[in-house]
């Protein structure tokens, strides 16, 4: 609160009174969202969806925030949440206790993914999320923490000793896609620069090319992206790269299409099978095959994981 001395404070009993109420307009709210400080009382650490892991057995996700300060047009949060306000859960100690409790149940590696319902680092200077969690759980041998982000806020990480079991995963897209769809998010150059700083400091860095958007000049755009990655980063040292084509649960797609009917992305040729809206199977395969092959053509390619609907 001390970091927002000029803000207007409105008290509420439960964040859901504001965040979950009916008849909210995500698009209007997104222009000027509020910040809600709350405690998360249950369901803090959730089993990750099967397609979310990196071929590992024990996968969980958690969100110290709901929503994101960026405004990516493809983001499923627009379809999942009724509200565009940003919620920060302040009871970190309860999240950390839950992580510890799960970690002692197995001796096998156990993965905790952050950045599913928010950007992990975008508000790190304010929330001190990375410092709090890394200092508390990274010394547990079997715990692996992935911090997914588009942010350049890596200063808190750079102030710490790197940990092998904490992976910063940067979501990247070609510049044209960033400009058109990732509103308010840092540029590709800025993200690569942040990733490079972390690599040089000894932190494991991963890349997430997900969602891949099938646009005009698709190959040229993504070829140039891969070139920029290999030029800027130590490619062989990357922890992993995941690739996935644009897809959304059907209900979420309908919501975001109604929110932004003028958006070209929501006007592509899609399939809607198994409750998911995605590119036609042949298109999706073509996109992922081409990306995988292009990445593997580079020397010393790190492990590549495909995120698809199966």
């Amino acid at each position: 609160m001390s970091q927002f001395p000029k803000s207007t404070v409105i008290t509420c009993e439960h964040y859901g009174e504001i965040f979950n109420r009916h008849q909210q307009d995500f698009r209007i709210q997104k222009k000027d969202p509020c910040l809600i400080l709350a405690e998360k009382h249950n369901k803090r650490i959730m089993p990750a969806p099967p397609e979310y892991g990196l071929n590992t057995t024990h996968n969980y996700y958690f969100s110290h925030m709901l929503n994101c300060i960026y405004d990516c047009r493809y983001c499923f949060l627009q379809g999942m949440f009724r509200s565009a306000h940003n919620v920060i859960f302040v009871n970190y100690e309860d999240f950390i206790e839950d992580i510890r409790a799960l970690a002692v149940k197995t001796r096998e590696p156990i993965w905790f993914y952050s950045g599913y319902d928010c950007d992990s680092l975008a508000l790190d200077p304010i929330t001190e999320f990375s410092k709090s969690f890394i200092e508390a759980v990274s010394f547990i041998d079997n715990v692996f923490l992935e911090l997914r982000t588009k942010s350049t806020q890596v200063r808190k990480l750079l102030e710490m000793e790197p940990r092998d079991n904490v992976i910063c995963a940067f979501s990247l897209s070609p510049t044209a896609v960033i400009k058109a769809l990732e509103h308010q998010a840092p540029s590709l150059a800025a993200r690569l620069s942040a990733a490079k700083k972390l690599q040089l400091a000894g932190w494991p860095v991963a890349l997430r090319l997900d969602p891949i958007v099938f646009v005009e000049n698709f190959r040229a755009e993504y070829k140039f992206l891969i070139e920029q990655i290999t030029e800027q980063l130590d490619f062989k040292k990357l922890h992993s790269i995941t690739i996935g084509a644009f897809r959304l649960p059907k209900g979420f797609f309908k919501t975001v299409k109604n929110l932004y009917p003028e958006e070209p992305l929501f006007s592509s040729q899609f399939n809607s099978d198994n409750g998911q809206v995605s590119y036609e199977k042949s298109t999706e395969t073509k996109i992922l095959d081409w990306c995988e092959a292009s990445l593997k053509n580079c020397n010393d390619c790190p492990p590549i994981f495909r995120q698809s609907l199966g």
Partner: protein
Amino acid sequence: MELTGTTTLLVALKAEAQPLIDHYKLKSARQNPFPIYANEQLKIVITGIGKCPSAAALAHTAAFFSVLPNHIWINFGIAGHKDHAIGTAVSVSKVISKSGQQTWYPNLIKLPNTLVKPLTTYDAAVDDYVDDTLCDMEAAGFMSAGSSLHIKSECLFVFKVISDNKLSDAKNITKNLVAGLVKSHISTLEALIKKAEMKVQDVRNWKLEIGSELFEKWHFTQTQKSQLREGIRRFRALDKEILWQDMELDNCATAKDVIENLNRRLQKLLPKF
């Protein structure tokens, strides 16, 4: 009844409405069941005192007049507070119904020289000013009806001017006092309306216009109309240079042909960034 406009003010008293009617040169649009004054942009509804009249007036106006999506609704008027000086303008952040123990959160726009405070709606006039909240008799009815009618919370605003406090309670309120208080805050109210309009503007701007000539030339079933609408939406989003109306449709014998023609074109289009 056609009564277009983008903003509606709901006020309890004629004394609250009159300075606004004069300022905006509003014309009487109807007198029953609630007096309504309007021009092309703005209408004012005089609801009467209390939660129920306030709720009924909002429901009536929303139901019987054609309003645009994201129409702005503002509950405006006088309210009490224990300490704040008479004449203080307040944007209300939270509305509490004293009797129903319910809470609503109207949209909030910060304005210069305007406080932000919660408000409690009572069933009768109060003079003990217990809480550090404003007190009135209408806002909870306004918010309750807005919520029941599925009006977006972003479109509901509550804006009040302090008319009474511990030093000068509600018994001292006169028509002249109310008119003076309202007059002195017309510019603040205008700023609120302008900012509220700006917030919802781009959401209102996108309209899908389908020319009636299509429906004159071919017979579309309801399903086909929906397919056509979706096809035209996609075409307009993907190709900003060519109008869908310019597509060659003369060879189409049926509505089905029109839709297939449109879909063939769409298959070739990819988002251009």
